[in-house]
Every structure is written in structure tokens, then in C-alpha cells.
């Protein structure tokens, strides 16, 4: 048994290592990844070796066993350096790893989590389709039983890391009830087409996946038949939102650091632009917004640690807010850079594009607002007392 002090210092050590790794091995290559439209395989392999791909999962399944807060802080460090590397953590650990951990059989956990942790394999989460996004319960991909197997037909789109993943968690429908299946890339009938021409996530290997009479053995069902909504997908998106919330803090923090550094070095009218109060206004707003977003993420992390049922809504709030402020801060960071902010020679150009995506993935801003509004309408209602 390790003592709580030992555990704390182990977590601290991992966080410091993540900081070093992000600074030395990820950040210098982020622009190149974005321009070439791919995350280098050697970096993915290093992230797996370091344990970052399943950082939050128990050590018995090849993870680092991090608590939610430390996991969030590690996500921030990697996300500050490169959004697509952070996206890889979101997909492997939160969308795929946590989902298998919560709903997979012991065999599925041992086989597929080990595959990510130790065998250089990647998973991807395939919910969205060409015609179905926010209205996820309407997925059109179908499954039907044939003997001991299931036959899947349909098309998925926007699958992050789908272009290079070895297996996918696919959400499919039968008689208006959805189930999750684990489909291997090399199964007959699976066709993967990488997506190009993207605003952001250019290095996140997005793909369309076509499934034509794909035969999936019974033991590849994740959860019970009909349990995709609200359970299995709900778990995936909840963990995904927590990761993306920290991804928002990461983009905002990286934007702030870039804007402060630029403002203190750029001279106009014979002064550093940091001395102009209108520029300071943007910096002041950015600092306050980031501190608030990080506080929301930390609170969500603490509630998750306690397995408090409110953690789910606090996570949604943190994701919504940090996605929002990431866009605002990145926009101001471009503004402070002037024309240079519009050039890929400066990271804020990339951060600005990447920030936009956070308002769309794991539930759009409008869907989050409605969830939060329902929570507010319930929690803050006081029955009017009779006159």
C-alpha cells in the first residue's frame, strides 16, 4: 500500500514530467503537425509510453491512475503545447478508455485498454454521422442480429483519430434503441476516408467511416443492448467534456502567455504596446476569465474525485465556460498581435482556429446552454409563498 503522501508526490512527479514533455517534445512540433495535417507517429508512441494516453485509468489497465484534478492539469499542459495532442488524450483516455472502463467486460478492458497502453494501438469514438450531430439519439447506423453476430451498416463522420485508429466504438441503432459496438478497422466492410480542408483539428486525423455489412461478434458489444443512451454515450461525453474543459483552459492560457509576451516586446508610438490601456484591458479580461475557467475545472475535478452526482453538471458548466472564454481570449490574442496574429508564424493564429472547435465538440454551446438552463430551472426554483 502506498501512503497518501507517496501518491501525491507520484502525481506531482507525473505533472512535472508532463510539463517537461509538453515543453520539450510537443510544443516545438505543434506548428509542423498542423501544417502537415498529422500528429507524428513517434510522438503518439512516446505519449503512450509515458502513460499519457490513459493517464486517468487505473494502473492495472495500463493507465497512470491519476486523480481527476491531476489528470486535468496534465491535459492543460499538453493542450497548451498542441491542441491535437490534447485531442488524442481526450479520445484515448476520456472517450474510449473511460467508456470501456465503465461499461466494458473484464475481457474487453484487458484486451483493448492494454492495446492502447502497451501495443501502440489507438481507439476512436464514432457517434456523429453526416446527417446526425446534436440529435445523437437519431443515429442512422443500424445493427441487426445474425446468429451469434451483429451486422452493422451506416456512415460515421468527424471521427477524431479515425484515420489512424485500430478500432472504433460505434453507436448503432435497432428499433429506436442504440447500442455501442467495438469494430476493428481491418474488418471486412470497414472503409476509412481521412477528412481534409478543416478549420482546426488538422493534425487530429479526422475521418469518415463507412460500415457495409460489417460482421461484429457478440463479445464486441459494449454495455447491454439498448444501453448506448443515456448510459454508455453519456459516460463518454461526460468524460470528454471534462477533458475538453481543460483543453479550453489550455488554449486560453497559451493565448494569454503569447499575448503578454508580444505586448511586452512590440513597440508602437515609441512605447511597448503593453503600456496602452486598451491593450491592458484585453490582458486583464483574459487573466480574470482564465482564472475563473480554471476554478470551474478544479471544482468539477474535485467533485469527480468524490463521485458526487453534481460533478456531471459542474463539468458541463466548466466545459461551456472554458470553451467560450478560450475563443474570446484567443480572439484578443490575435488582436494584440495585429497583422502578425493572422500569420502561422505566430501560435495565436492556430490557437484562434482551434478554440472555435471547443464550442462545437462534446455538445455545442447551444446544447450545453440548454442543459445548464434545465439544471438552473430545477436547482434555483423557489416555490412562491402564498401572499
Amino acid at each position, binding site marked *: 500500500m502506498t501512503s497518501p503522501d507517496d501518491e501525491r508526490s507520484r502525481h506531482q512527479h507525473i505533472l512535472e514530467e508532463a510539463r517537461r514533455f509538453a515543453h520539450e517534445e510537443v510544443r516545438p512540433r505543434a506548428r509542423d503537425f498542423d501544417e502537415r495535417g498529422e500528429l507524428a507517429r513517434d510522438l503518439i508512441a512516446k505519449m503512450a509510453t509515458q502513460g499519457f494516453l490513459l493517464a486517468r485509468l487505473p494502473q492495472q489497465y495500463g493507465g497512470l491512475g491519476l486523480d481527476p484534478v491531476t489528470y486535468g492539469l496534465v491535459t492543460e499542459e499538453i493542450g497548451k503545447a498542441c491542441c491535437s495532442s490534447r485531442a488524442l488524450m481526450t479520445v484515448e483516455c476520456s472517450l474510449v478508455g473511460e467508456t470501456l472502463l*465503465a*461499461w*466494458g*467486460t*473484464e475481457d474487453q478492458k484487458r484486451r483493448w485498454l492494454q492495446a492502447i497502453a502497451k501495443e501502440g494501438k489507438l481507439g476512436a469514438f464514432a457517434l456523429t454521422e453526416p446527417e446526425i450531430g446534436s440529435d445523437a439519439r437519431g443515429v442512422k447506423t443500424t445493427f441487426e442480429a445474425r446468429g451469434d453476430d451483429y451486422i452493422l451498416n451506416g456512415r460515421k463522420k468527424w471521427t477524431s483519430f479515425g484515420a489512424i485508429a485500430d478500432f472504433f466504438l460505434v453507436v448503432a441503432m435497432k428499433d429506436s434503441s442504440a447500442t455501442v459496438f467495438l469494430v476493428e478497422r481491418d474488418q471486412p466492410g470497414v472503409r476509412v476516408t481521412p477528412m481534409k480542408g478543416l478549420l482546426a483539428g488538422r493534425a487530429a486525423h479526422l475521418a469518415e467511416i463507412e460500415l457495409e455489412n460489417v460482421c461484429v461478434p457478440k463479445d464486441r458489444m459494449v*454495455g*447491454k443492448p*439498448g*444501453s448506448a443512451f*443515456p*448510459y454508455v454515450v*453519456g*459516460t463518454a461525453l*461526460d468524460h470528454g467534456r471534462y477533458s475538453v474543459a481543460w483543453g479550453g483552459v489550455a488554449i486560453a492560457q497559451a493565448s494569454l502567455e503569447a499575448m503578454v509576451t508580444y505586448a511586452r516586446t512590440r513597440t508602437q508610438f515609441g512605447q511597448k504596446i503593453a503600456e496602452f490601456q486598451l491593450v491592458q484591458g484585453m490582458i486583464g479580461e483574459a487573466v480574470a476569465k482564465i482564472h475563473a475557467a480554471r476554478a470551474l475545472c478544479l471544482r468539477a475535478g474535485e467533485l469527480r474525485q*468524490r*463521485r*458526487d*452526482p*453534481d*460533478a*456531471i*453538471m459542474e463539468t*458541463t458548466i466548466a466545459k461551456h465556460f472554458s470553451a467560450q472564454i478560450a475563443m474570446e481570449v484567443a480572439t484578443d490574442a490575435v488582436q494584440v498581435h495585429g497583422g502578425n496574429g493572422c500569420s502561422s508564424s505566430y501560435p495565436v493564429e492556430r490557437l484562434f482556429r482551434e478554440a472555435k472547435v471547443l464550442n462545437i465538440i462534446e455538445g455545442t454551446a447551444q446544447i450545453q446552454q440548454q*442543459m445548464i438552463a*434545465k*439544471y438552473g*430551472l*430545477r436547482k434555483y*426554483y423557489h*416555490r412562491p409563498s402564498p401572499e
Partner: protein
Amino acid sequence: MHDIADTIRQFVHSHLVAFDADTKLADDDNFFELGLVDSPFAIQLVAFLEERFQIRVGDQELDVANFNSINRITSYVQSKRTQ
């Protein structure tokens, strides 16, 4: 038995999303079908049951049919606790 049912009833009632403040939910009512809970509720409920009753809901055990009324959840928790 009563304690379990009361605890679950309290949790479910505190999570109802109903604009009509007089909405009633009987212990046998299917709150999903009646549209009285929002989408995060299901996994909030799982987290609550695991934390409160020290049971493990995940893996292959979850049958969605167990989780749509106060009575069904109560029976599920009881059966898990006697296992």
C-alpha cells in the same frame, strides 16, 4: 427497505425537470418516458447509487429497465446489496 426507497425517492424528486410545480411522480412511474428528467440524469443516478450504497452498477449488469422508476431502482439496489 424504507430507507433505501426514501433515499432514492428524494434523489429522483430533487432532479425532476418540470415546469409545472405541482407535477407528481408515483413510485411506479417511468420518469424517462414521462420526460421528467434531463439527459445527464441517468449517469448522475448511477454515480449517486454507487456512492451512496457502495455498489458497482457498471459492467454488464446494467439493464436499462431497472432504472426508470423509483420502485425498480429500489429493488435493484436491494438485490445488489444482498449479493
